[in-house]
């Protein structure tokens, strides 16, 4: 009696599970359908044959674009002009990617997203989630947009997955008061904001002798702000991150190894796996670190958490932005940040139209000046519909920064295949080297992993 019961129960529950699984299998298969443009386009477009009245926008914290009140002013202006309302969500760099990927999985990705080519072009664009924006580009645009900003937004097949809005060059910064106290200010050229690697080494030694603690951190607690560690290591002795045609990573370049060896040997430099870029900036503002490798114009303008004013630490010491040190003391090759909008292809033509209007409004209209200055970065184009964008800021610091740093923009290699995987490999590599693992072997392993991603 009991045995037959068991078997019956088993059969029953099996039936239940199988039938339920079959149902949900159906729904599971239905989900990609909504994201496949061909099948669902007529369906979803049908109810909104006219114009879309609302769009959604997700922004990464690109300077002031992470600030709700500032962004609201911009989107309100857009709504007033077009009647299209914009629902904005604010992402953080630490988990923003996960949020977007989760949303793609669930089929509720936004219409618009604000970020840089490394995500828009090399990842979501390459995987077919974004709309090609090449048709938004006419000859005037091509002449107005700065070539260095436009090139990374277009992939090898000529598809444009990002419409650039603003840009900057990532540099480093030093605490000038601390440098003066340690007598290390003799090693920097404040006029050109350049220094040689030898002087950098001497400066760190002087600072370490004065303060007796870590001066600068090669942060590797995650990928956040890794452009700083890349630029530092590449510039010291002229190494490269990828080869010239962006097909393979070149981390084992002897010049890079020399730089890493040098950094490892310095008392004042720590490979710190408890910090990411954002933490490093906080420690620098705080005065614990005397130099920051994760810096740009927005940081320089930021009055910091204690509100002591732009270009100041929390105790009011003066912050000076600098080139990364190079072997001969010439200007460094700086990593660029190029931010703009991408449109997710959800198969709704009306939404895509509305999203394009939004891009036009923010990136190529009389309002562009506001949109760009909100970001506290520089315009990705020289002028928009007759407005000159080259002198946006009546701020001396920003104009100096534009003159001193922007021309040093180096190769934008971030659009290489396997970029996201390579970033993970990079910070893990630095962690292991910092832990004392064998350097050549560690670099070789992680570079091989990154190159595998680049090839696949």
């Amino acid at each position, binding site marked *: *009696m*009991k045995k037959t019961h068991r078997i019956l129960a088993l059969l029953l529950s099996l039936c*239940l*599970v199988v039938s*339920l*699984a079959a149902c*949900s*299998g159906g729904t*599971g298969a239905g989900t*990609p359908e909504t*994201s*496949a443009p061909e099948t669902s386009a007529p369906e979803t477009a049908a109810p909104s044959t006219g114009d879309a009245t609302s769009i959604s926008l997700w922004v990464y914290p690109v300077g002031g674009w992470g600030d709700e009140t500032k962004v609201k002013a911009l989107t309100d202006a857009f709504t007033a002009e077009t009647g299209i309302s914009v629902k904005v969500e604010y992402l953080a760099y630490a*988990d923003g*990617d*996960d949020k*977007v*990927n*989760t949303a*793609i*999985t669930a089929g509720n990705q936004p219409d618009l997203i604000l970020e840089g080519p490394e*995500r828009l072009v090399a*990842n979501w664009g390459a*995987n*077919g989630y974004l709309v090609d924006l090449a048709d938004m580009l006419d000859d005037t645009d091509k002449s107005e947009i700065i070539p260095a900003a436009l090139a990374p937004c277009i992939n090898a097949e000529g598809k444009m997955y990002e419409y650039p809005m603003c840009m900057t060059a990532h540099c480093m910064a030093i605490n000038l008061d601390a440098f003066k106290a340690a007598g290390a200010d003799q090693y920097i050229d404040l006029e050109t904001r350049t220094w040689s690697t030898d002087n950098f080494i001497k400066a760190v030694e002087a600072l370490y002798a004065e303060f007796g603690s*870590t001066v600068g951190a090669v942060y*590797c*607690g*995650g990928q956040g702000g890794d452009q700083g560690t890349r630029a530092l290591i590449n510039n010291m002795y002229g190494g490269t991150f990828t080869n010239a045609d962006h097909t393979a990573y070149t981390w084992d370049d002897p010049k890079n190894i020399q730089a890493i060896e040098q950094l490892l040997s310095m008392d004042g430099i*720590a490979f*710190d*796996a*408890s*910090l990411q870029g954002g933490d490093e900036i906080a*420690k620098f503002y*705080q005065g*614990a*670190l005397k130099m920051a490798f994760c810096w740009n114009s927005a940081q320089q303008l930021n009055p910091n958490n204690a509100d002591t004013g732009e270009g100041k630490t929390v105790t009011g010491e003066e912050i000076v932005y600098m080139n990364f040190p190079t072997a001969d003391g010439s200007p460094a090759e700086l990593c660029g940040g190029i931010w703009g909008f991408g449109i997710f292809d959800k198969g709704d033509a009306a939404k895509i139209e509305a999203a394009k209007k939004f891009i036009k409004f923010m990136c190529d209209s009389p309002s562009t000046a506001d949109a760009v200055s909100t970001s506290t970065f520089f315009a990705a184009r020289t002028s928009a519909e007759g407005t000159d964008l080259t002198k946006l800021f009546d701020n001396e610091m920003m104009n100096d920064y534009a003159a001193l740093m922007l021309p040093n923009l180096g190769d934008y290699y971030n659009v290489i*295949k*396997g970029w*996201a*995987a390579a970033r*993970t490999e990079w*910070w*893990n590599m630095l*962690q292991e080297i*910092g*832990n004392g693992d064998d350097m050549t072997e560690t670099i070789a392993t992680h570079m091989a992993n990154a190159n595998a*991603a680049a090839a*696949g």
Partner: protein
Amino acid sequence: MAKQPQTTMSRALVRRETISGYLFLLPSLIFFLGFVIIPMVICIFNSFTNANMHPGDVQFVGLKNFIDLWQDVTFLKALKNTFLIVIVSVPTVCAFSLWVASAIYKLKGPVLSAFRCIFYLPVVTGSVAVTVVWKWMYDNYNGIFNQILKGVGADTINWLGDSRFAIWCIILILFTTSVGQPIVLYVSALGNVDQSLVEAAQVDGANHFQVFWRVKWAQMMPTTLYILVITTINSFQCFALIQLLTQGGSDTNTVMFYIYWTAFKLTEQAGHFGYANAMGVVLAIFIGLLSAVQFRLAKEK
């Protein structure tokens, strides 16, 4: 045990019992099947495919994902760390809370409840709030721990940035958020120990230790098993600590975090759902075995 009434039950009664049983179960079953069992079945199914975030054909790949897993160094490390966390935290939580409970259960009412409250506070403070404050305390530059080390003239430690310490730092936080409930439980279990048995043992000449081990411990067995179960569950839920403190760096990756990482972090591997599901299945098998052992223990008692 249930045999006798069942054989004597009439067929109609069995049917009635089954129907009413399932009616009572229905609301719960909808949620349990819908949000636990069905996803688990799909997860098992997906683990044999190359299912992906990106649209495209899903193909059956047999055991490929599982074979890949056993060659994935990151996964093996994560598996090791996951078990390290469970194996260390479960016994220490049990032992520590038993010790605290036996030290406080005879104290006066208000003192007892003050202690109980204090040890329970980290549980109610909330995992994220606790995590951010510990992150600050562990800070390499101006954290309180390093300040103390500096104060006594020792070298500072990069707590979360050093792979020798990071996982232990995480286990410590997990520990503080886990002991609250077991202490409360042991206090009441010790209070409920049958005093006459204790006295009888003492008359027989048993020493302090023997009384504790033979009489009290034996009587608290059900409580201990319950604590083992909830602490094990708790230890497997330590996702927030990893995600907010180290992102799996400094050799603190766990399977739970690696599943999330593989599925949704922006890597070229991202959206490799089949692979992530295979990890889930492996983890589920281990957990199933662990639960089976625990319940076997419970039955034996």
